[in-house]
Structure formats: structure tokens, C-alpha cells
């Protein structure tokens, strides 16, 4: 205690504590007074959690998603702290509404507490602004697209475009959008909320709680001190709230994190649940009427709430004398609840939406698994470059697409690789080898077409089956044995293909040997050096990649090309 005495002598801490805690609660402590305190607790917890998140989060378009994924999936307990922050914002919205309803029910917005009512409403709006700005920060698909809708609405309102550009930091989303949202979310809004909270609490202390509608004498008799009677109830409510939040966070394993924002994708965007009513409202007002849903109706509701102290002309706070005001607010809440419910039901019955959600989750899982090895500095969707197939695609684009076409992209200087050496590809090639799809643009264009007189389509199909059977063990498993036998007979006895093409490995002749043709190992040999005698020999024009690419790269490319055929 000596230390406390020492400190008190110099700071007056005891008097300050007494000033803070000693307050009478006329009519006694009540559970319905707890909401304000619970909001203070939630705000403080959000601040602490927000600061913790800032230890790992990096607000730039290239880093935001990667740092969030790192924080969430790799940092010890990162998922828990982020999840608590995420669910904490939902809890704040819920408790704000409960607080507002309690104040309306008690008539606490009435004279002389109007200013406190207004500061409360502004704080409520700030809580929503927190939610909106925080949603974008992970720069994932959900946050990106949902926020696009919000800023899009801003821009569609008459005169709203400059505001939209200001908030976005220009005409489109990018680094400046993130730094702005970040500054708003972690500096502007918390400072504004803290300032208003100070005013709100001072005014609350000035006027005291709005006691139940009882005779003065009874209120006096039942009076209890704030400390510890009311504060105990407050802390108990905070503990219940915290327990729910922890339970929710553990159950959901934290907050969702979708795949990185991809402006080129078509993501099924939905706002957070507490904005669903606005989302739903927008469905009913289209075209020039959109402003009804985006500005007029929400604006009217806000004006109504702000004007409540003047709308309410009742003589007393008694509930029965204020039925008009109470039913007005009740109607508003009912409308919000109904719209939210309809939005949820519609989405649940919307198959394409459900399918989109499923895809989004699969994409998210894949992106987050790939992010564990580190996201390339380009950031965001570049995480998919970690995918071995994407790496191979990038290699193909860089080294092969200058001559070969794949999936409709690339040049036609060399054979198209879509369906390369599939049955369809082989038969089409034999009928028309000089097509640009095959070898028409290369020096290897001396093969004569096989006409339908030389071999019918049916016979050619058997030959193709035979060639597929030659291409290797994995292909041999999928062939039709009877057709292969027929094809072999045609090859050996009727057709003249064998005058140029050998079918045994190691033998060379004028045309490429067909053993193993189209298998990954064969493609890899082509990539290394296609001018070997049993391959394309003198007609080979393809660069030799044996020295330009690593062994693994060549094998990956070969596997990639060899598996492009449609079954």
C-alpha cells in the first residue's frame, strides 16, 4: 500500500478511480444496462487485436493477401487472433443494435439526452464503417468484390463519383485503395470512435442511467452503486460475450480467407451478413430507381432515428404512451430482419450461387496451400505460379508458344499441341499432313496425305489405334485390342506407311520412328534434340533445349504436353 500512497500523493489516482467508479444507479443494477459496457469492452478488444494483426499485416496490393495468409496459416495462433477480430466485428454490430433497442425501449433518447443519442448513432455508423473498411484489407476475393459493390454504389449516386475516387484513390482499385482503407480502418475510425465515446460517456455520467418508470421514492430506495453492483453484471455480460466469441472462433477455425483478389475472375460476391438487408433491398430497385435502395430508404431510416427525440411528442417515458415511436423502430428492425432472411433463403436455394461458393472454397484451399512456400513478389494471384502445372505453363509460354499453339494461344509455326498425338489428331494428320495445324509450316512437310481410297475412315481408325498402342505402357492399357490387331495387319500388309516409318525403337528411316511416339519420354527427347536420326532428322527445325532448360523442366514440359490429349 505504501507504493499506492506514494503514487496517489503524486497523481491523485485514488480520487480519479473513485470519480470513475462511484456512481449511483437509481432503481438498482440491471442486466439491460450492460450493453454500453459490453461495447466498450468489444471496442477495446478490437483495438488490441487490431494492433496485434498489424504486427504481420502489410497493406499493399502485392502483399496484403500474402501477409494475411501468412498471419493466418503460419504464425502461431494467428488464425485465432484474426478470427476473434473478425467475429468481434459481428459481435459489435449485434450489441450496437441491442444497445440501440434498449435505449429506444427505455426512452433514453428523450430530453435531456438527445446529444447522447446522436453521438450513439454516429458511433453506430462508425462501427459499420469499420466493418466495411476492414473487409477489404485481406485483399481476398470476397473482400475485394464485396467492397467493389459498396464503392460502386457510392459512385452511382449523383455527385458521388468524386467521393468514390477519393476513397479508392483513383478510378480503380489498387495500392492506393488499400492504403486508404488501412488508414481509415486503423487511424481515422478508431480515433473518431474513441473521441465520440469520450463525449458519450461524459454525457452519460452527466445525465445518469435512464431509470425504470417508477416513483422517485422507490428509485431512491432501490439505488445501488455502480461499483461493484452494476459493474459485476457488466463484466459478467462481457465474459458471456467473450465466451461466445472464443467458441465461435474455435468452431470456425478463425475467419475465412478466400483466394487472392483477381480482378479478372467472376466471384460470387456477398457482403458480410449484417449488410445483407441492403444487398437484398437493391434487388427490388433497378435502373433509375436504384437510388431508392442505396440512398433514399437507408437515408430515410437514418433521418428517422436521428429525429426520434423530436418525433416522440409523448408526455412521459411510459411505454404505452410511446407506441407510435416504438412501433416505428420495431417496423424498421422487422424490415431489416425480413430482408436479411429473404437474402439468406434466396442464396440457399440458388444452385449456381452454391456452386460458386464451393468453387471459391476449393480455390481458397489451393491458394493457401501454395502460399505456404512463399508468394512470388508480384503478389496476389501470382501464388498460383507455385503450382507445378502453372510453372510448366509459364515455361511453355516462354519457350514453346513462340511456335506452338496450345489451348488456342500461341503461334502456328509448328504443330498445334492441343490433343497432340490423340486418335483424332493422328487421323486428321494422316489425312492432311500439310495443314498448318500439323507440319504444314515446317520443313517436315513431305508426307503424302492418305486418301479415303487408300484407307477408309474405319481402317484409318484401326491404324490410329495401333499407333496409340505403340506409344507406351500407359497408352497401351486404354486401347481396343481387336482394333490394334486390325491396324497392325493394315500397316504390315496394305498400307505403305512402313516404307518411311519404323515401328521399332532404335531403328531409323526417312520418317520418324513411331515407337513410343507421344509418350512423355518421347516428347522429352524431342524437346532435348529433335534432330536425332529416329526423330525428325534433317527436317528438324526446333531449337535444342537440352542446354537451355533443366532436366526437371524438360520432363515437366514433356509430361504437360503429352497429357494434353482429350481421352
Amino acid at each position, binding site marked *: 500500500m505504501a507504493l499506492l500512497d506514494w503514487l496517489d500523493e503524486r497523481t491523485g489516482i485514488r480520487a480519479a478511480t473513485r470519480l470513475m467508479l462511484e456512481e449511483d444507479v437509481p432503481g438498482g443494477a440491471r442486466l439491460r444496462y450492460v450493453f454500453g459496457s459490453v461495447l466498450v469492452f468489444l471496442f477495446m478488444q478490437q483495438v488490441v487485436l487490431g494492433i*496485434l494483426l498489424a504486427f504481420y499485416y502489410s497493406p499493399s496490393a502485392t502483399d496484403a493477401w500474402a501477409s494475411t495468409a501468412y498471419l493466418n496459416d503460419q504464425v502461431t495462433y494467428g488464425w485465432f487472433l484474426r478470427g476473434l477480430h473478425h467475429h468481434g466485428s459481428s459481435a459489435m454490430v449485434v450489441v450496437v443494435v441491442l444497445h440501440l433497442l434498449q435505449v429506444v425501449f427505455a426512452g433514453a433518447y428523450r430530453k435531456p439526452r438527445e446529444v447522447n443519442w446522436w453521438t450513439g448513432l454516429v458511433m453506430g455508423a462508425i462501427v459499420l464503417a469499420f466493418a466495411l473498411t476492414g473487409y477489404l484489407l485481406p485483399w481476398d476475393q470476397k473482400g475485394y468484390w464485396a467492397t467493389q459493390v459498396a464503392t460502386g454504389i457510392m459512385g452511382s449516386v449523383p455527385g458521388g463519383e468524386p467521393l468514390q475516387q477519393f476513397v479508392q484513390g483513383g478510378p480503380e482499385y489498387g495500392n492506393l485503395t488499400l492504403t486508404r482503407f488501412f488508414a481509415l480502418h486503423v487511424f481515422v475510425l478508431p480515433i473518431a470512435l474513441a473521441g465520440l465515446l469520450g463525449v458519450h460517456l461524459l454525457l452519460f455520467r452527466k445525465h445518469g442511467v435512464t431509470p425504470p418508470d417508477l416513483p422517485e421514492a422507490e428509485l431512491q430506495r432501490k439505488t445501488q452503486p455502480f461499483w461493484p453492483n452494476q459493474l459485476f453484471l457488466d463484466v459478467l455480460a462481457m465474459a458471456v460475450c467473450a465466451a461466445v466469441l472464443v467458441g465461435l472462433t474455435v468452431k470456425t477455425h478463425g475467419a475465412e480467407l478466400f483466394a487472392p483478389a483477381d480482378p479478372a475472375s467472376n466471384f460470387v460476391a456477398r457482403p458480410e451478413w449484417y449488410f445483407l438487408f441492403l444487398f437484398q433491398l437493391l434487388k427490388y430497385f433497378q435502373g433509375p430507381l436504384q437510388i431508392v435502395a442505396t440512398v433514399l430508404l437507408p437515408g430515410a431510416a437514418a433521418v428517422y432515428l436521428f429525429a426520434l427525440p423530436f418525433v416522440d411528442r409523448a408526455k412521459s417515458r411510459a411505454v404505452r404512451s410511446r407506441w407510435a415511436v416504438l412501433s416505428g423502430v420495431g417496423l424498421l428492425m422487422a424490415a431489416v430482419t425480413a430482408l436479411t432472411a429473404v437474402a439468406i433463403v434466396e442464396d440457399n436455394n440458388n444452385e449456381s450461387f452454391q456452386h460458386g461458393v464451393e468453387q471459391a472454397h476449393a480455390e481458397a484451399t489451393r491458394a493457401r496451400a501454395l502460399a505456404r512456400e512463399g508468394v512470388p513478389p508480384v503478389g496476389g494471384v501470382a501464388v498460383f505460379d507455385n503450382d507445378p502445372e502453372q510453372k510448366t505453363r509459364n515455361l511453355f509460354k516462354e519457350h514453346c508458344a513462340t511456335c506452338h499453339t496450345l489451348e488456342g494461344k500461341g503461334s502456328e509455326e509448328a504443330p498445334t499441341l492441343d490433343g497432340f498425338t490423340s486418335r483424332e489428331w493422328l487421323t486428321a494428320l494422316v489425312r492432311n499432313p500439310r495443314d498448318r495445324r500439323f507440319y504444314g509450316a515446317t520443313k517436315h512437310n513431305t508426307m503424302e496425305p492418305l486418301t479415303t481410297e487408300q484407307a477408309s475412315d474405319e481402317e484409318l481408325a484401326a491404324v490410329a489405334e495401333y499407333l496409340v498402342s505403340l506409344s507406351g505402357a500407359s497408352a497401351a492399357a486404354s486401347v481396343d485390342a481387336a482394333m490394334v490387331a486390325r491396324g497392325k495387319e493394315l500397316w504390315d500388309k496394305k498400307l505403305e506407311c512402313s516404307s518411311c516409318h519404323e515401328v521399332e525403337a532404335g531403328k531409323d528411316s526417312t520418317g520418324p520412328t513411331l515407337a513410343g511416339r507421344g509418350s512423355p519420354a518421347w516428347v522429352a527427347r524431342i524437346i532435348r534434340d529433335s534432330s536425332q536420326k529416329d526423330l525428325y532428322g534433317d527436317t528438324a527445325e526446333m531449337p535444342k533445349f537440352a542446354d537451355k532448360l533443366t532436366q526437371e523442366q524438360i520432363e515437366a514440359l514433356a509430361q504437360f504436353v503429352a497429357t494434353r490429349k482429350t481421352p
Partner: protein
Amino acid sequence: MSSGSGGEPDAGRRGVLKLGIGALGLGLAAVPAVPAIGYLLFPTGSKAGEGAFLPAGKRSAFAGAVPVRVDLYADKVDAWNKTPDVKLGSCWVLERDGALQAFSTVCPHLGCAVDFDAEAQKFKCPCHRSAFGLDGSVEAGPSPRPLDSLEVKEENGLVAIRLVRYRQGVAQKEPV
């Protein structure tokens, strides 16, 4: 206590309430605070890793006793980013008695980059005047240990060097 007798002091009951407030308050603080300890300590204590052999060029580039400065490149993972082909560090490479010897350019004293003074045939640190012989031994200045030698591997005429960073300012050569 019967309802409504709020005005009377009831020290026992209030004491219990105060205790309850304290206990619940501590619990509330612990919810973010306890995980925050593990969270904030991440990833302290983890080792920088073994260090892989990185390509340093052709063996023929290092003929002769004049030290050659080589930059070593590899993919670098920094928290959430993986950057391909980043310059991770440098080393001095020279031939001694037919074998290659590599020294980290990081001065063991306080981490400045060590230069080679061709005239004096010494490695010299520009910051605190440590000087090292061609064998890496300390010849002058405050460095607590010789230059840190790095492992060299030769294969098919190509040289690879294992880049490791060592703690600065101590006499023992310990990896960071």
C-alpha cells in the same frame, strides 16, 4: 440479500462481487493476451537454416592467387514472399595450394563488407580497420576471429559455395 435493500452496506456480498469482477476481468484480458505471447514471439528462435550450395561460376575463373569477389544468388523466402534468384550474399574466392578457399565478405567484427587490398595483399574491413591475411587470419584490428571460411564444392568444372551467416562480434564461429 432481499431485493431492494440496495442502500445498505453489505460488505460481504460486495466483496464477492469485486472478487468476481477481478477474476472475470483477468479472464477477459487473457483471451487475447495469452495467444498473443506465442503470436508475437513467432518466429524468434528459429534457425536461418543450413544454407545450400549456391553456384559460384566456373572453376577456371578462380585460377591464380588473386581473390575474386563472387555474388551468390538463390531463391529467397522472406516471411510471406518467395523471390526467385535474389543476391543473398558475397564471398571472396581464391586458390591456395591448388585448392579453392572461400571467405564470407561479412566482417566477423560487426558485419561490414570486407574489401581486398591488392597492394597490401590483405583483406581489409573499411569500418573498423580489421585486416586479414590471405588465409583469413586476423592481422590487425578488432575482429574477434578470422574471416569466416565457407565450404566449397567442385563438380564438372563448376564451383558451388555454401553460404552461411555467422554471429558477429564473438570469438566462436557459430551460424546465425
